């Protein structure tokens, strides 16, 4: 049903070389105003954090003790912190880490969650064991689990991949492994309902193999809760990252990230409110823009809408 919605047939269309379906997706995506704005904002932030440091060359960890607690000025457009470090430089270098961690951890958790959810929902035999596994992960106390992960994996990882990459992998895995359960439960619930729908039964009756069933019929129909999970997952990952560095699991303490900048600034909320506003705004903007991109992507991937 979903895939088979026929487009108005015409000779020209039939004679054209077959067009990649992703072009259709992109065409549809472009018409979504919110998604386009979201995309632009998101790309602006990403390029700002990546390329910004080449233009604004102050070292984010450089301490200029005479210039501490300054407001906005030409020398320091975002002001300075309590040690006189430049906030703009810190926001940019923090952004690189936060966005990288946020996206990677979100992707990992959504992939894991979707995989487990689809398998559990689709294959009845796997449902019991996988859902009990989900219950187990939901019940594990987070903090001790993270502490155990640091203890067991930090040194081997940093030896294998170098301290920075090792920490990155550890953080991303820690967040991914502890946050896939909600996605899994939601996807499974939807799949349970989907697989009793007529179009699935129809596809099954013509002998479609399971792998094709899942990729062609089930997955496209659970996209929207997955997109919501992904949006919420980014915010969650950025904040969790800052919590991890307090446990000593994250990056070294002089390494700025948005979550950390926000947390450090909360004590100064009355005297220097701008210091809370910048990282807070940055996180919100990223989440908001990802949300709109997700919205547009969901519409673009939905063949019913795309066809119109």
């Amino acid at each position, binding site marked *: 049903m979903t895939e088979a919605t026929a487009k108005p047939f015409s000779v020209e269309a039939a004679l054209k070389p077959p067009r990649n379906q992703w072009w259709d997706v992109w065409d549809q995506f472009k018409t979504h105003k919110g998604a386009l704005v979201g995309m632009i904002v998101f790309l602006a932030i990403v390029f700002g954090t990546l390329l910004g440091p080449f233009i604004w060359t102050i070292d984010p*960890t*450089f*301490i200029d*003790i005479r210039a501490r*607690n300054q407001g906005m000025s030409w020398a320091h457009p975002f002001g300075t912190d*309590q*040690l006189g*470090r430049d906030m703009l430089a810190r926001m940019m270098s923090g952004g690189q880490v936060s966005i990288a961690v946020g996206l990677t951890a979100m992707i990992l958790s959504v992939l894991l969650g979707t995989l487990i959810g689809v398998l559990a929902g689709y294959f009845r035999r796997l449902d019991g064991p996988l859902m009990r596994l989900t219950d187990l992960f939901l019940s594990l106390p987070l903090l001790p689990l993270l*502490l155990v992960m*640091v*203890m067991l994996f930090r*040194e081997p990882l940093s*030896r294998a991949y170098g*301290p920075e990459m090792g920490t990155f992998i550890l953080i991303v895995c820690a967040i991914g492994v502890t946050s896939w359960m909600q996605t899994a439960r939601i996807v499974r619930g939807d799949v349970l309902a989907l697989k009793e729908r007529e179009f699935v039964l129809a596809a099954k009756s013509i002998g479609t193999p399971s792998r094709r069933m899942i990729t062609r019929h089930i997955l496209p129909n659970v996209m929207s809760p997955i997109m919501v999970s992904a949006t919420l997952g980014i915010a969650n990952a950025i904040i969790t990252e800052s919590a991890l*560095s*307090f*446990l*000593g699991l994250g990056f*070294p*303490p*002089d390494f700025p990230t948005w979550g950390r900048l926000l947390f*450090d600034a*909360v*004590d*100064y909320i*009355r*005297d220097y409110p701008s210091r809370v506003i910048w990282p807070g705004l940055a996180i919100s903007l990223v989440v908001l823009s990802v949300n709109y991109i997700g919205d547009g992507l969901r519409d673009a991937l939905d063949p019913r809408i795309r066809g119109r």
Partner: protein
Amino acid sequence: MTFKTALMGTAVAMAFAPMAFAAGHEERGRDGHVNIIYWQAPSILNPYLSSGTKDLESSSMIIEPLARYDENGELVAWLVDEIPTVENGGVAEDLMSITWRLTPGLTWSDGTPLTSEDVVFTAEYCMHPEGGCAQLAKFDGVESVEALDSLTVRVNFNKPMPVPYGPFVSAEAPIIQKAQFADCLGANAPQCTDANFRPIGTGPFVVTDFRPNDVISMEANANFRDPAKPAFATVTFKGGGDAAAAARSVLETGEFDYAWNLQLAPDVLQGMVEAGQGQAISAFGTLVERIEMNLTNPSPDLPDGERATIAHPHPFLSDQRVRQALSMAIDRELLVEIGYGQAGRPTCNLVPNPPNFASDNTDCLTQDIEGAKALLEEAGFTPGPDGVRVNADGVRLSVVYQTSTNAVRQDFQALIKQWWEEIGVETELKNIDASVFFGGDPGSPDTFQKFYSDVEMYANNFSGTDPQPYVAMYRCGNEPKPSTQWQGENINRYCDPEYDALLDELAQTADFEERGRIVRQLNDMLTKDSHTIVPLVDRGRVSAHSNTLGGVILNTWDSELWNVADWYRVN
């Protein structure tokens, strides 16, 4: 500290002012209710089973010791008439016993008399082998405690004790009631929930409701020895949250009257004081924030049982000149200004207080980057292509610098990293959650005892006013090592036979002046002579009270609530 003196002056003046006009018709409970907030919540009101300072402080409002330290670190008689000394015959000439005489007529809050039996029982309770008493060190060297009559107690030691004021002195070793705790000895201790939560005491307040890790409700002790005290009829003792929130509730919203231990950045605290609801008070004790140098090699390439043990000396920190250069590069004045403000002062001493024991060592107070560079050159380390110094054998000056997670400590790390990199020492920072860092779990690589890094920073102090156990920590052989499950207090793995000989001499010396001389010498050996320990800041305590609360005298030598009976409401 002029600020402190001025503050003390006002506090004292305020303390006497109401007495002048109100004397004669003061009554207990006249000032109604007082709210106290501790951002670490008390878990138990029995200090012998406590899990931290918060429990000692809260219980000090209820149960009391025989003698306390005052705000100057001097002993004051509390439940006795005078402090026993060799001069007044209370301490035996051979230093093998001390005899305390209780003030006659004291009663517990349930109305029964306080007797020497209670004191004897307290010792029995804590020294029980299965009890797991947290204050056992207070009873170190005690052979026996006997009641000579109903008001006299003699403590016999198994060796001469130059300072016999361990047992029953300060908030760490108060007297508990025998009648209440008689069935709670040893393994039974945890089963006495009611006694642990509502101890009967001689102090100014009595518990009416205790909710562990949350709140204590108290009321004035109807049987307290001074009929005019305490001024407050009821107390709410709230726990939980964080230091900033506690400070806010006293200084900005005025919901609470007293907040304990506000370790906040000075400008944050200053901003809150400016709201005008209350004031921050500070006082100094013996707490010193320091950098400890690892004299052994913490390299992860070494096999697990040998890493950070005396089998492998550190590749460059074993050189005194390198340690000295690291110390010289630090600007302690600036650290104080950034991190502690009025609650800190730069120090070069491990023992900064009391004055008798504090060395006049001030060499480190001025930062000397050039001098540090010259010293490293002298030690054979020259700048490599990336600016990091290397010696002829290819040893790179690259250190891992760890500490616990704490906003001020992370600021210190960032500053010190910058200075060290300036003299050509590559620095990698690492922070560890405090409950892991200070926990002695031998399975974790991140404890401060294991010291799997080159340098580490934390603060330590000693209880009471005698530093002997404190300096004795650095005895040879007392280092954490695999064979002792990494337990041990000689964190740096320092070992000097001369130091040990001096320690033995200290243990034999009773003369106060002479003890001072030896401790100062020991202090200098660890700090300015060898730079094994690099002290940074003599850390004071900052607390805050509202403008309507009077009588507060901040005491760092005992519980902060030591004189809560004298607190009153200012109108």
